């Protein structure tokens, strides 16, 4: 196992680290990467999936039988995981940070239209603010509103879905891990586990990779016809710029890549967005009373993790299937 330590401390004063384990046929030409906690607090789910996988003797034997190596990367963004935030220590969204910072074109200018509405002076939001949000949705339409909010932006450092101004610690850590474990591999698959979008307990398979028909076809061959691609406008997610999976092309250019985000639904979109708004409001208003802080923190965890047996069962069953499908898809044909 390899451990990358983040220099900051966690909410309980604990170490913050990205831990990795390599399983299966370790020297094989094919590698499946499974990542958790890219969005901090979403790591409750992905970590549980990885833990279950480590305890699953039957599944691990099938990795070896298929001749595929499996790399588990635990807590890509440990600071966000520990502090119950989706973003990292610098308010950066890891799945918007893997971009070309030399590109000076403005990213998602529509965000500026909604920033003040998303982060009002008062929390909880006033009736006037709620009316403003509904007005913006009515004017823009929900898809355009969702895109303006979540596509990623570089203009407001304290805002939602901020891409950052440089590669973060987690970005550099992931790139280093990909180089270390992916160099020389012929085929690399990637499952990045997320939560917060879609129906409760359903794992939406969101295609992750370049806008390439052959890659999308391969992902469908691995994981099924229900792979959704935002390039085709079929995903619960808006098209995003700077997602982590895109780093594979630079770090492992020799490999044939097949990736997806496995996104488990939790609570309705409005509740998720409300939790995110509260979290960012709290980051700006550190003077907030303890009761408000606790309510916001709890709302964040409850928006991205469902502490209920049925939800956990659905998550573990679907993630196990996805990992096995990925391994069998990557096996020598």
């Amino acid at each position, binding site marked *: *196992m*390899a*451990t*990358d*330590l*983040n*220099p900051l401390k*966690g*909410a*309980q*004063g*604990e*170490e*913050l*680290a990205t*831990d990795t*384990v*390599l*399983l299966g046929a370790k020297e094989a030409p094919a590698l499946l990467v499974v990542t958790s906690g890219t969005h901090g607090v979403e*790591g*409750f789910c992905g*970590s*549980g*999936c*990885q*833990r*279950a996988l*480590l*305890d699953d003797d039957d599944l*691990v034997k099938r990795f070896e039988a298929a001749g595929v190596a499996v790399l*588990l990367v*635990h*807590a890509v963004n*440990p600071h966000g*995981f*520990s502090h*119950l935030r989706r973003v990292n220590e610098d308010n950066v969204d890891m799945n918007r940070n893997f971009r070309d910072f030399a590109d000076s074109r403005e990213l998602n200018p529509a965000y500026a239209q909604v920033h003040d509405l998303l982060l009002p002076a008062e929390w*909880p*939001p006033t009736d006037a603010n709620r009316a403003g*949000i509904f007005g913006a949705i009515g004017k823009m339409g929900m898809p355009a509103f969702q895109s303006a909010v979540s596509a990623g932006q570089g203009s407001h450092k304290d805002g939602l879905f901020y891409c950052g101004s440089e590669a973060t*610690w987690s970005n*550099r*850590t992931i790139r280093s891990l990909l180089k270390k474990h992916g160099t020389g591999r012929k085929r690399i698959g990637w499952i990045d586990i997320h939560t917060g979008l879609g129906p409760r307990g359903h794992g939406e398979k969101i295609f992750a990779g370049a806008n390439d028909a052959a890659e999308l076809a391969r992902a469908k061959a691995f994981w099924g016809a229900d792979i959704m691609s935002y390039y085709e406008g079929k995903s619960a997610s808006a098209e995003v710029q700077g997602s982590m999976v895109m780093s594979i092309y630079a770090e492992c250019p020799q490999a044939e890549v097949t990736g997806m985000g496995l996104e488990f639904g939790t*609570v309705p979109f*409005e*509740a998720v*967005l*409300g939790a995110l*708004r509260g979290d960012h409001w709290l980051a700006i208003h550190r003077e907030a009373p303890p009761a408000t802080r*606790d*309510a916001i923190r*709890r*709302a964040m*965890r*409850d928006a991205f993790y469902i*502490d209920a*047996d049925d939800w*956990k*069962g659905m998550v*573990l069953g679907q993630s196990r299937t996805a990992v096995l499908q990925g391994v069998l898809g990557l096996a020598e044909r």
Partner: protein
Amino acid sequence: MDKTNGCFAANYAEARAGFLAGAKHRGLEVVTDLNPLKGAQGEGTVVSQRTTPRRGPGSWPAQSTAASRWPPT
């Protein structure tokens, strides 16, 4: 605690401890790399060392119904 619930943690420290325990169960070596530290001006430095990860104390309280009472947007 049943096997399904045992995979899920109440906080990051517990999640990490569980992951490390699972790795140890499979006999995997633990290596720690200290990554960039921030200097006074925010600049990065790199320090690497081997160490044994430790577990932090505490846990978030059990999930409550606070979310449903939290003002909706």
